[in-house]
Every structure is written in C-alpha cells, then in structure tokens.
C-alpha cells in the first residue's frame, strides 16, 4: 500500500520532469546551415556565391529556344505561349513565353541573392586569404550586373535592385529607374567586378575579368543602338514617339555618337585582352576546315574553348534540361522532339561558297539548294540528304546510311509498283510524326555529333555560351561602322569571314551595316542574339514580322531506276524544291511596335503603383 503511494509520487515527479524540459522543441533543419555561419566561413560563402550562377538557368538550352521568337526558327509543339509573342498578342496579363532567364520575378529573386552576397562580402567576417573575399565579391557584383542587363534588355529601365529587403519595409513600391541610370549602374558594377577579378584564374563557369569586360561591351553597344536613342526611335516608331516616359526606355539627351565611342572602346578592351579561336587568318579557310572550326566553336572543344568567355556548363552526372538539347531539337526520325526548327528565311540568308548570295531565281541554286553553300550552313543545319548519326536499331533498316529525310519520294514496293515514301524526318513519318519539323530543317548546332551518342536517352555535355569572344568582335565592328570607321570594321568582320571560309567584304556605309547584320545572324544563330538585335536595330518589322516558311521536297525516280529503300541520291532521283509559307492556322506572325519591349506583368503593376507600363501596353 505504502509502496504504491511512493510509486504514485515518483510517477508524478517524473511526469512533471519530462513535461518541463522543452529543449527538444528546438529542432532546426539538419540539412541546412544558419545564415550567420555562412558569412564567417569562406568555404560556405563561396558555396553561396556559386549558387548565384543558378540564375543563368539552362542558358539558352530550355526546351523552348528564344530563336523560335525570331526569324531564326519556329516552335513545333502547340500550347507554349510562343505565338503570343510572334503574333504580337502580348499584353500585361498574358505576356507570352518568358523563360526563367528572362523573367521579372526570377531575375529579381536572383538579384536579391547577389545583394546579400555583396552586403556580406564588402566588409567580410573572414580573412581575405589569397584574395578569396575579393574574388567572391567580384563574382557577385558581376552577376548583379548580369541580371540587371537581362531586365534592361527585355523591359527597358526597371527599378534598380541594390538593397536587401526585409519583411518590415515602409514600402516595397519602387519606381522605375531611367534607362540611362540602369546602364550606368551596370557599368559601375562591371568596372568594379573587373578590378576585383583581375588576375584571378577561375574554373570555367565562374565570372572573370574578361566576362565583365565582354558584358560591358554588350551593354554599351545596346545602349548606343537606335532603339534607345529616343529621337531616332521616335522617328521610326509612332508607338515610341507617342510614349510619355521615353527616359525609361532610352536616352533623351546626349549624343549617340559618344555612346558609340564608348561602345567601341569597351569592345576594344575585350579584343586587346583575348584572341578567340582562329581569328588571326589572312585568307579564308577551306570549306572542310571552316565547317570543323565552326563546329568546334559551338561545341567548345578542340580549340573552340577559347571562344568561350562566360558559359553555362553541363555534366551528365547531373541530368538537367540543358543536356537534352539533342532530344528537344533533333529530328523525329531519331525519336527526338524537333522543338525549334530553322525557317527557310534563315536558310536563304546563307551565302554560296564564293561569297555570293543564294537566289531561288537562279536555276543552279533552285535545283540543288544544299550544294555549294557556305561552310556554316553545313555546320548549323540538318537538311534533306544531310549525313547524320545512325538511327535507332529499329529504324536502321529504313535508312541504313543515317541521312536526314525531309521530303516525299517515290520508291518501288514488293509488287514492283511505284508508291510514296514519306521521309522519316517529316510530319508524315512513320516515326513520331507529331514531332516532325514544319519547315523541313533541323538545327545541328550545339547538338552532340558523336555517332555513338543517342540523344533520346543520354544527356550531352555541351556548354551554353552566354558571352563569347566573337560577339565582342561584332560589337567593335558595329560601333566602328556607326562612327564611320568602315576600314576598321571590315578588318574585323573579315577575320570572322575568313574563319567561316568566306572571302573578304568590300562593302561600306549602310551596305557594310547590312553585311554585319547578315554576318551576325549566321555566325551567332541560336545564341539568343537575334531577338535583341532585331529590336535594338529596329529592323524587327521587316524581319521578325515575316511569316515563317519552309521547304517542300519531292523526289521523283529517274527513268529505269529501281529503289526500294530510299536514300538521298541524285543519280536515282530528280528533286524539286518549293518554298512554302507556314499555314496561318499553325502560326500567323505579326509585328507591332509594342513588342520592342516586354510588358510589365499586370499583377506587378497592381502591386506597385509607382510603376509605369511600357509603350503600347498602357491602355
């Protein structure tokens, strides 16, 4: 009896005891590290700064490429809001397709991270041993400039993000800075980053001094362009001339020539510091060498690495979207998805081997359009008869040679009758026809060409070039043309042309600028250049506004030829090539001047009453 009383007492005490110890309720996450620890430890601080590169997304290797929003390509699959942009239907509620790398909310989230790093590294709580703190601050400062430049070229002047917001701010409603203020802010960051990063030898994928110089060159050539010189832009566009807040989208004072001077100097700084790959030639490469060099540059291997100034890298050990470029864009006959397919408008801009223009009116050209073209054509595209990898085991019997088939052909069947064979890489193919190209072409650039590499189930390791040396060459040439230094511009453009296996240019003045536009369109195709170039040069109405087109190819058996399994062969076949417009029900392109800038999202406008909408979206 007594024992029980003691037991009761003991139980009561232990009961009170366990209920009072509340320490176990402090259960922080074991997979995370506290903010304060990060900024006192250089290893952790570096990990934070490395994460800033996440803001680069997949580079330009999203399934939907920016190329499909331009006259480089169209997108095959429905329902991705790409036609919202190409048909000029963008509005503040439905801006159309914007991927992570260009999107307002994501860019501002990433800017916040750069500001946290800059705040904590400006007066670091750890020793600057071997310049680690400087280097990290330099990288973060570069990335802050990079994200601002993405906002700037898509939206115009935007609220500068140079402060780390807390939950208890008086207001979050910041007005837009002017275009000029944003440019100046970016340039100041890049100058600082270049100084901090000077002399540092860094792993590819990190920002370097050269990357800061190259981005500065890009920002300044954009700033000098017609779209951002308000008197010039207003003369060319009534939407811009009618806009009340021109300072948000360009310069309302100062001289465009001065800005070209600055752009030229910034580009020259890049050219003085590096040399790219094979830009020291004095005569054109042979066709074969030029093809290989262009492929090397786009794959960043066999010397092409020295073109790369700032890249987003991929490794198959971490399967990411960016490693699926071949799956996303390769031919359906190879079980790939053929998402972004080149349009005939682009194909036709590739010159002949001798430097003359391609012309459908010329009988030789029209009857064999894929013969005698400039080397970059072969390095960039897959087209009827182009040799490519072996097809999957199931389809090798249909095409033992591994050649692209984009036409419709006569073949002889078992009963000796002539029947129609639809090319394996068409929309009538027996293989995943819904993924076939509408244009009759596929992109080859940036796709792993190793014949053993199967795109449909393997991740490629080809880096995306955010900044490459050749761009600075174009920037330098462009600024010099604008400044009347045609000779200097031609000298540098011809280095690119020699490398591409083409003869020197002789044009000058406006014609030289035309030549530069065409040269850059080809050399930097699918590198997210055209979308911005066509806008800032204000050539979008007559380029991006064009209806996309493709090719209709028919192969007719020559008399007496007996072909049972099709392969491209001019001995057996007469080929006809007919350019066709893409059906309007598929895509019906239109340019309206509001499309020079993306609209600011409706909800964001409502959240921030200080914002002013871009021209053409005001309503």
């Amino acid at each position: 009896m007594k024992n029980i009383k003691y037991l009761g007492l003991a139980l009561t005490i232990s009961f009170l005891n366990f209920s009072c110890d509340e320490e176990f309720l402090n259960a922080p996450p074991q997979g995370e590290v506290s903010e304060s620890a990060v900024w006192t430890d250089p290893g952790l601080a570096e990990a934070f700064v490395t994460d800033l590169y996440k803001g680069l997304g997949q580079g330009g290797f999203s399934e939907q490429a920016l190329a499909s929003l331009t006259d480089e390509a169209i997108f095959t699959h429905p329902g991705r809001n790409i036609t919202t942009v190409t048909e000029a239907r963008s509005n503040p509620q439905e801006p159309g397709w914007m991927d992570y790398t260009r999107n307002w909310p994501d860019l501002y989230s990433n800017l916040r991270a750069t500001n946290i790093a800059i705040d904590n590294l400006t007066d670091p709580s750890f020793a600057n041993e071997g310049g680690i703190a400087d280097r990290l601050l330099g990288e973060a400062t570069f990335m802050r400039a990079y994200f601002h430049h993405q906002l700037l070229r898509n939206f115009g002047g935007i609220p500068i993000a140079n402060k780390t917001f807390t939950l208890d701010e008086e207001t979050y409603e910041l007005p837009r800075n002017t275009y000029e203020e944003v440019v100046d802010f970016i340039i100041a960051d890049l100058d600082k980053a270049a100084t901090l990063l000077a002399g540092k030898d860094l792993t590819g994928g990190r920002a370097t001094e050269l990357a800061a110089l190259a981005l500065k060159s890009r920002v300044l050539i954009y700033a000098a362009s017609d779209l951002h010189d308000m008197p010039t832009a207003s003369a060319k566009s009534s939407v811009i001339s009618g806009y009340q807040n021109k300072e948000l989208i360009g310069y309302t004072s100062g001289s465009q020539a001065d800005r070209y001077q600055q752009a030229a100097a910034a580009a020259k700084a890049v050219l003085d510091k590096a040399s790219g790959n094979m830009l020291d030639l004095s005569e054109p490469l042979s066709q074969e060498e030029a093809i290989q060099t262009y492929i090397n540059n786009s794959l960043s291997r066999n010397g092409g690495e020295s073109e790369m100034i700032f890249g987003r890298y991929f490794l198959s050990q971490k399967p990411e979207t960016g490693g699926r470029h071949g799956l996303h864009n390769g031919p359906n006959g190879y079980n790939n998805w053929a998402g972004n397919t080149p349009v005939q408008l682009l194909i036709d801009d590739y010159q002949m081997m001798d430097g003359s223009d391609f012309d459908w009116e010329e009988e030789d050209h029209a009857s064999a359009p894929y013969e005698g073209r400039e080397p970059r054509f072969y390095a960039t595209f897959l087209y009827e008869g182009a040799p490519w990898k072996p097809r999957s085991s199931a389809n090798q019997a249909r095409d033992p040679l591994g050649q692209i088939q984009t036409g419709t052909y006569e073949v002889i069947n078992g009963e000796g009758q002539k029947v129609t064979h639809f090319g394996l890489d068409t929309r009538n193919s027996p293989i995943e026809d819904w993924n076939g190209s509408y244009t009759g072409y596929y992109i080859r650039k940036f796709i792993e060409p190793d014949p053993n590499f199967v795109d449909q189930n393997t991740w490629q390791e080809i880096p995306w070039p955010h900044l490459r040396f050749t761009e600075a060459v174009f920037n330098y040439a462009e600024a010099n043309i604008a400044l009347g230094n045609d000779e200097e511009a031609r000298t540098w453009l011809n280095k690119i042309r020699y490398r591409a296996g083409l003869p020197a240019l002789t044009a000058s003045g406006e014609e030289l600028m035309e030549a530069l536009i065409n040269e850059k369109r080809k050399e930097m195709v699918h590198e997210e250049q055209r979308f911005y170039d066509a806008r800032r040069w204000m050539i979008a109405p007559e380029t991006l506004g064009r209806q996309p087109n493709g090719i209709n190819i028919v192969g007719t058996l020559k008399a007496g030829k007996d072909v049972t399994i099709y392969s491209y062969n001019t001995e057996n076949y007469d080929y006809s090539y007919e350019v066709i417009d893409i059906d309007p029900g598929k895509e019906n392109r239109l340019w309206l001047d509001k499309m020079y800038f993306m609209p600011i999202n409706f909800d964001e406008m409502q959240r921030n009453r200080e914002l002013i909408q871009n021209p053409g979206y005001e309503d």
Partner: protein
Amino acid sequence: MVTTKRGKEGKPELTYQFNQGFAQPTTIPKLADAAQYGEMLNDLNVYELPTNEWRAATDAYRSTGTYITQAGQERTAPFSPEALALHRAGTDPWNYPNTDWYGETLKTWSPQSRHNLQLNGGSESLRYMASIGYQNQDAYYKNSATGFKQYDMRINLDAKINEYIDLQLGVLARQEYRFFPTRGAGAIFRMQMRGKPHEPAYWPDGRPGPDIENGENPVVITTNATGYDRDTRNYFQTNGALNIKIPGVEGLKFQGTAAIDNLSRLQKRWETPWILYQRGNGFEADGVTPILVPSQRGPAEPRLRQTNINQLNILLGGVFTYERQFGDHGFNALAGVNKETVEGNDFFAYRRYFISPAIDQMFAGGDAEKNNGGGAFTRGRLNYFGRVAYNYQEKYLFEFLWRYDGSYIFPEASRFGFFPGVMAGWVISEENFWKNNITAMDFFKIRGSWGQMGNDQIYYDGSLQEYQFLATYGFSSQILQNTEAKTLYETRVPNNAITWEVANNSNIGIEGQLLQGKIFFEFDYFYNKRTNILWRKNASVPQSSGLASLLPAENIGEVENKGFDINIGYRGQSGDISYSVSANGGYAKNKILFWDEPPGAPSWQLSTGSPMNTPNPVYLYDGVFPNQAAIDAETLDYSDITNNLRPGDMKFKDYDGDGAITPLDRVRLDRNSIPRFQGGVNLNASFRNWDLAILFQGAAGAIAQVSLGESGNIGNYLLEFYENRWTVDNESSVYPRIANRSDQYYSNGNDFWYRSSDYIRLKNFEVGYTVPQQFGERFGISNLRFYANGLNLLTWDKLKVYDNATGQYYPQARVINAGLSVTF
C-alpha cells in the same frame, strides 16, 4: 493513440476471417476509335489552312485524300478515305489496327484477398489477444507488375496487477510491400488516354507494338520489362499503458502511456531498357507477315537506386483523472501532458552502367557517375490539456476544456498556444413539464459549444512548411566546367513572429428520440472561423523586392465556414425482420474573409469573398461561333486574345462590359473541388440468419476539370468530343472546334472545361448469412458467417468521363467481395 482489439476473458477462442475480392476501375473514359481519331486528325490538318479553304479541303480529303491549296500546293490528308475505311473495317490488323488502349491494358477483374487468424482469451488477471494477417492486392493491369502485400502480427496483453494497478502492453509488427514497374500509374494512365487507336498495342503475332512516346507503350510499361520499383516498409510498434488508482483519494486515477513506433523502409529501383517492335521494311519469307524490328527503349543501360529510410516516433503521455458523484452533482476533471518526438534519417546509393540487366545488385554497377547521399530530421511537440465537467442530475451539463500546445514549427517566444473551449447541454426531456406533457418524445437535448483549436500543419507548394522562423540556407549544386560544385541558397526570409493558426468553432444542436428510440434525430448548425491562417504575402508584395519566392508564412488569413449536419433514422421490427433506415447529410460553405490580394485586382477576381481553393479566374463561356457570319456579326473586340477569329472558336462573356474581351473579363468561380453537400442513406435489415446492408452516398456542389491537354496529334480524344465537335458540317454553337493539345485560346482558362461533379453512388451493398448455432456446434464452431458485398457498384453522375474522386489517373475501384468469418 489508436485503440486496438483487446483480449476477452474466457477460454481460448480462435477466429479466422477470409475475404476474396475482385476489383475493376469505376469509370474509364470513352475514347474515339481509329477511324474517328483519323477523321479528327484530318480536321486538324485542314484547320491549319486559311478558313476560306476549310470546306474545300475537307471535301477533298474525304473524296480523294489530297487537296491542292489556293497557293497551289498539294496536301495529303493524314488519313486517306481508303485508310479510314480499313481502320473502320478492322480486317487488316497488321496495317490498319483499331486499338482500345484501355481494353488492351486493363483486365476485367483484379483479385485481392485477406486472411486473418486471431486468438483471444484469458483470466481476470491476464487477458490476451494475438493475431496474424495477410493481404494481397493486385493492380488493374493485365500482366501486372504492380501490387501490394502485407503481413502483420499483433499481441495485446492486459494484466491486472492488483486492486490499484493494471497494465496494458501491445506489440505490432507489420510489413507492407508495394511493388511497381519503373513507370508509375501516372505514366500508364496517361498513355492509355494518349494511345493512338490506329496503332497496335500488340502486333497480330503477339509482339508488343511501338511506343506512344519515350518507349511508353502501356501494355509493356505495366510489366517488369522496365525493371522494378519496390518499397518495403517494416513497422515495429510497441505501446504500453499503466493505470493507477491513487489510493486514499476516491475517483483519482493516473494513466501513463508510451508508444514507440519504428519504421524502416527500403526502396529499390532497378531500371532496365526494354524492347518494342516497329515495322521494318518488307516481309518475312512467307511474303505476307511484315518484318518487325526490335527497338531498345527506356534508359540507355541498367541502373539501380537503393534508399534506406528509418523513422522513430515516440509518444509519451501522462493523465490524471478525477471522477466523482456527490448526490445530484457529478464532477469529472482531467489534466495531462503528451510529449511527441520524431526522428528520421535516410541514405541512398546509386549506380548506372551495369553491364547487363542480369544482376540487380549494387556491386555490379559501373563506377562512372555513381552517387550517394543522405540526411536526417527531428520534430517535437509538447501538449498540456485538461477538462473540468459538471452535471446536475445529468440534466444540466457544463464542461470547460483547454489545451496548451507547443510545437517545433514555431519559435520559442510564440511556440505555445492556449486553446480553451466550453460546452453546455440541457436534457429538456428530463424536466417534469416535458415528461408530463410530451410522452411521444422520450429524449430531447439542446446543446451548444464554443472552442478553439490550434493548427501547426502548414502545407503549401505540396509540402509541410517547417522552420519558417529560421534564417537558414539550403544546399544544392551547380555544374561548372568539369565539376559539380556544392552551393548554398537562402531558403526564406524568416518570420520571427509566426505562431499557431486558430480555429474558432461554435456549434448549436439538438438531438432526440421518439417512440422508445425507434426514431432518432440529430441536427447541428455550425459556424467556424479560422484566423491567423498562415499564408504568404506574395500577391501584394511587388516581385521587384526580390522576396517573391522567399516570403515566409505569416498569420494573415481569415476564413469562415458554416453549415449544418443532419442525421435522422428509424429502427423497426416486424416479426423476424428487424431493420433500420437512416439518412445523414451535411452542408458546408466556406468563404475567405481576408487573404493576401494584388491591391489593384478587380473585385470579381479576388479570392476574398470566395471559397478557398477556387481555380484561378477564368473566362465565362458563352457558346461558339458557328460560322463566319456569326464572327462578322460579332461586336465585341477579341484582339487581346486572338488576331483572327475563326469558325468554331469559343465566345466569352464581356464581364466588365467594356466592349472587348480582355483578361479583366476573367472571373473567379464560386466553386471548387470540394462538394458543398454530402450525404448518405443507410439501410440495414436482418431476417432470421440473414443480414443486409445498403449504403447510398451522394455529393453536390463541386466542380471538376475535363482536360483535353494531350488530345491532338499526340493523343486521342474523348468520344464525346468526336460526336459533338464543331466541324464544317456540324456548325455547332455549343461545342468548339477541336484543338491540337492546348493550341487555341479557348483550350483552357474558361469555364466550359469545368463540370459539375455531382453524383449519387451505391457505395456498399452487403448480404450476410450466419449459420445457425446448432449446426456449427457439431463441429465446435461457435460462430460462422458468410457474406458477399459490392463497393461502388452503381454511379449516377454528371461528370461521366472520369471517376468523380480521382479524375483521369488510377480510378477508384468497384469491388466485389465474398468472405467468411469463423470462430471456434
């Protein structure tokens, strides 16, 4: 704590229960057949042309299969008239198949069974209950590699130590074994819906046909040809309770409890390439059988991932209770505490480049790209609670109760929340004025309550939002040149003031009985108001702050929920038949009182004022443009959403009346996927040794989305859309023109695609027969019952195309069961 079956005093009693069931999906979408699908693909091809060519192109495709466009280009119909005829006829399965993908993939009935053996007995001082059980459940698929098996064992002991102390101990061991192919039910059901009816599931010689995409032929990816994905969960749970009557204080008791639950889980995912067969060129030696070529699909080479997960939950509790009656006054008081901790950890290893699919063991994998990882977590909660109840003659009832809850989810300063409640009841039928006047109603009670409850389970973005008050950085990685670097990122901006969500529940109700309990009824009206709801301010804080994805949960939301519950029934007996009928139903409607909103959004798009979880604002469907004349006559401006209106396009309502269809015309619907009204009718009857139970269930007031997002050149259409769609021949003003996936402005984002999911269902129908005792006794059987039942046998619904509850993926089961229970 879950209460489990406990031993009964007496001689050992053995019970065996067996159940054999057969399951099939309740609803399978009806899809177009090969010829119908072919016609629709021809339509899609025509719709790419300018509208003034649609008529001519359609006619040409039907008569010859080719059309010369106005631009002079020859187009070939995806399906020639001859091909359509052959698909329709079904006479040439090699070349013109007509495949029912659901039919090819699913079997009619899938078996499931259960066995349970239970031993029961004991003396006054020690009682025992022990059982072992087995369950086996197959999936819907033919050649199924999916299933569930369970083995369990349980022992419960109840010991009476002495007058003051008794003890309960229990042990449960259970293995749950789930196995799947490496492509889950999501992929399988997606591919059955997408499956093109003009392509074969199997070739006529039995070899599997080509994939729809990514190797995903559903008749193959349901099998172990893709490898396997196994999940074995071993539970070992022990629990004990010690009950002590405190001597010297009458009515005072103490109960101490402990439950220790251990889960160890092994996942093993073995992915292998598989083979499908495609048409090659030419024929076999017989000259008629087409040559088929094998094609390897799926992963490039075999790969294996194994994961171990361990979790230990410990729940300790102590409760004092005091219960006494002093004359007419009854008292009942209780005070207690519960302490809960959870610890978990996991570890995985991964290898690829196995040289062969023959060995599915980790050591046999290649060294390149091998990977491993692991992590751990802990959670804790501490709850104090109590109750004081008083009644006078069981006529007037009062009760006060409280909880004081602490959770690791919140910071120290706001970790604990106090949640009181009161209840009162009046049994009016005990009053003399009632007894003397109202004789028909023998029991009638009015009751009311008000109380608060706290909630710390903050779920959004699909996961539990823990650590909202902590400034911690998470780990990730980024690829640099030739290296994968570890990275750290800010997980959130901490909210130091975060605390409990509170539900304020009030309720008033009556219950009563008539005719000695033959008729009973219950009615409750409730009004619940949830405050301090944890949500982010991401609708109102501008994204240019950079906070958009980092905002923590804050105690900002307020939602009310009101409605009623009703339950009435009748129990009767006539001769050997006894029966009961009851009906229950409830109506509940919630409304958001405060939510974070974009400051400038129009009132008809706000969440505030609407029920929770309504879809984002949508355009209101207003019919279809049947022809060009209707488009020409249209006065509304559609230029914000399309450059080019075409026959068969959908019309929308100009909600804001500005003469243009703009995104401001989108309206927030007043419904969500949760029915406002739910109810059921129960019938139970027994006649001598027979018993019968019937349950009807119904629900109303919810909507479900019908999606044609993968219909088009990558997947089949619902038959309903084949039959009703707009075409050049059927100028429908109700159904729009078919789209290729979601490529038209009306393909989604409007209320045409939302349908009522109201339904009435025969949820359960059961007949049982208990063998007369005299008969069983001869074999030592004390009880023997046979039964058969059916679940979800019949459904009357408005949605029709999918199952109401589960949509397109893995539908609910209709099950037919038979079983027996025998006790020795």
